[in-house]
């Protein structure tokens, strides 16, 4: 069974979601190729899993071109580029088709690929075929000459709604069913990375009861659970101080983890003391923002690691299931709900000549009135989503 990411990789423009603007720009680039002012190469850049390589393949297919691909798994030093890429660039297509050269993951050209980049640059000069280059981080200083020689097209991270649509599309084709809420969760956790979302989807679809599923955020939480254990169970030692250096997570996120899990381990005096330290941590965070005095970060880190760990008298034993921070998700879900409430209030306010703010304040009564008579929702021109909100 092939991975879903491969099986459902888009083949046509119409199947590529969330990148309309980039696709438009690439097509225009190809149409204008070989005109006077046009550049020879185009760099598609953006974070992982948003469709850079896929788009390159789709373009080749849709324009009926032969695709010559060179990626990070190939050696790309000067010698190889000369041997492999140069002929490809100079020869016409065997099948007498158009040809597109794809240099995938250009930021992966490593320092061991001696002379690779300069060679690529000079090949761009002489190429008679359009060259597509993909990169995660085009702002790396070593790529600066490449930036000047090529047109840059940034691919956007894919918003969670689009990700969710794609997931639903795939599920339909796979004849699988997964709970709507779980889909939303996958889509949000993916943070714009569609490939990651599809991988998660496949993993979850293979489980028995997908509604109870929890899954790991990509390569981040492997050690955060361990870090929680070291902080809350163990004694504070010198290594506790450096603990968060090895956790691949921003300090702001770690604050949320600590916040969520303090009451799982501490109570009474320990609880109060731990929150006091967390409060101080947040205080310094606020001061850093306001005064841009970054040395305060030292205190944030000490309170959060050694400090929180040191409030207990004795090391703790036993097993604790630490929880993922839920507050941000709750706030987000609440905002979704408030958004609908607000759009109803806006319609009501305009219709009844009052301020939106007042309509929001008196919403319980307004809701009662609207619900009492179906013709009112018609008068206010409420849409289905708004009606659903009122019923719920």
């Amino acid at each position, binding site marked *: 069974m092939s991975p879903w990411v491969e099986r459902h990789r888009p083949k046509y423009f119409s199947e590529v979601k969330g990148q309309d603007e980039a696709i438009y720009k690439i097509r225009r680039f190809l149409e204008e190729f070989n005109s006077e002012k046009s550049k020879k190469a185009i760099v598609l850049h953006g974070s992982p899993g948003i469709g850079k390589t896929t788009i390159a393949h789709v373009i080749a297919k849709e324009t009926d071109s032969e695709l010559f691909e060179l990626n990070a798994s190939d050696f790309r030093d000067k010698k190889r580029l000369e041997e492999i890429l140069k002929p490809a660039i100079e020869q016409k297509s065997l099948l007498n088709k158009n040809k597109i050269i794809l240099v995938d993951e250009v930021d992966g050209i490593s320092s061991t690929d001696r002379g690779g980049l300069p060679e690529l640059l000079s090949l761009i000069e002489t190429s008679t075929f359009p060259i597509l280059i993909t990169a995660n981080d085009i702002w790396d200083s070593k790529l600066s000459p490449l930036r000047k020689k090529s047109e840059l097209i940034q691919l956007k991270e894919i918003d969670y709604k689009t990700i969710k649509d794609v997931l639903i599309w795939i599920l339909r084709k796979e004849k699988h069913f997964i709970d709507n809420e779980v889909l939303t969760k996958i889509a949000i956790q993916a943070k714009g990375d569609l490939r990651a979302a599809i991988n998660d989807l496949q993993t979850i679809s293979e489980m028995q009861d997908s509604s109870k599923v929890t899954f790991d955020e990509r390569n981040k939480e492997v050690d955060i659970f361990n870090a929680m254990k070291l902080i809350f169970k163990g004694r504070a030692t010198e290594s506790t101080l450096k603990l968060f250096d090895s956790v691949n997570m921003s300090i702001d996120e770690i604050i949320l983890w600590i916040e969520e899990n303090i009451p799982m381990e501490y109570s*009474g005096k320990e609880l*109060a003391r731990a929150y006091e330290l967390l409060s101080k941590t947040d*205080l310094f965070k606020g001061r850093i923002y306001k005064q841009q005095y970054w040395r305060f970060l030292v205190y944030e880190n000490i309170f959060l690691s050694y400090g929180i760990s040191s409030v207990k008298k004795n090391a703790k034993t036993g097993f604790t299931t630490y929880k993922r921070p839920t507050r941000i998700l709750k706030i987000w879900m609440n905002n979704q709900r408030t958004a609908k409430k607000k759009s109803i209030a806006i319609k009501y306010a305009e219709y*009844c000549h*009052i301020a*939106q703010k007042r309509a929001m304040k008196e919403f319980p009564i307004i809701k*009662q009135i609207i619900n009492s008579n179906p013709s009112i929702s018609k*008068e206010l021109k409420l849409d289905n989503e708004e009606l659903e909100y009122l019923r719920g």
Partner: protein
Amino acid sequence: MISSIWTEKYRPSKFYELVGQDEIVKRVESLTNSMNIPHLLFAGPAGTGKSSLALIVVKELYGQNWHENYLELNASDERGINIVREKVKNFARTKSLGKVPFKIIFLDEADALTPEAQQALRRTMENYSSTCRFVLSCNYSSKIIDPIQSRCAIFRFKLLEKKDIEKYLMDIVKRENLTISPESMEIIYEGSEGDCRRATNLLQATASISPNITPELVSTIISNAKPKDIKVVLDYALAGDFQKAREKLLDVMLKESISGQDVIKSIQKEIWNLPVEPELKVKLTEKTGETEFRIVEGSDPFIQLQALLASFVLAGLGKE
């Protein structure tokens, strides 16, 4: 089309229908009949007839075509200078249709406009006075800058008396075939705080459950409409249940969309109602004050509030 929302269905549409503001109605009516009204400033509490009177004026002046000649804006939703520069000026720029030589802009809750926006408005009122009249409404005329006040005829709306609201509601009761006792009427009036619009809404919300308006029903509707208070959060904390207190706190903050600073304000007030020793009240207030300071200085109010709850838990256990 007759609206099914009673505040609209029974909104007075003739001068004589407006209750409780006889003096004002008389003066505004004669101005309207002369077809030459100055800029008007309606000041007074909510639900006393300001918007209704403006709408009556407009309908009297323009008849069927009132929509084309009337712009209604609510300043409390858009308070900045852009509302004046864009919407007001665009509308004021063009001439009116029909026999009345000017159009009318109704700027509701004008006291919410920033002083800067009011300055911009002042010039606009002058520059477009040939094509446009302004009707401003506000709760407090003191928040309207003097130059604007001096350009308007000012009308101060009275808070409606019980008999006014009763008269208005009884008319609805009759036409909607409801029954209501004097006691229920009293509760609606108390709950409305003299706001006729709110009183009407309370009546309709209650009637949506039963046409027989009982005191119990009215009270239920009113208490459902009140924001959930913070006291229950403190109760949990002082009883030692930190998890519950924290969960409830987030719940209240999100559902009622209140800020950390609002929460700390009500905690500070609530402390004085707690059944604890005076000495402890002072201690809790000290903690609360420190927390308010940290909310202002820090970055995440919810973390600060949790820390406060944790110290309340400790206080509740008598350990501090």
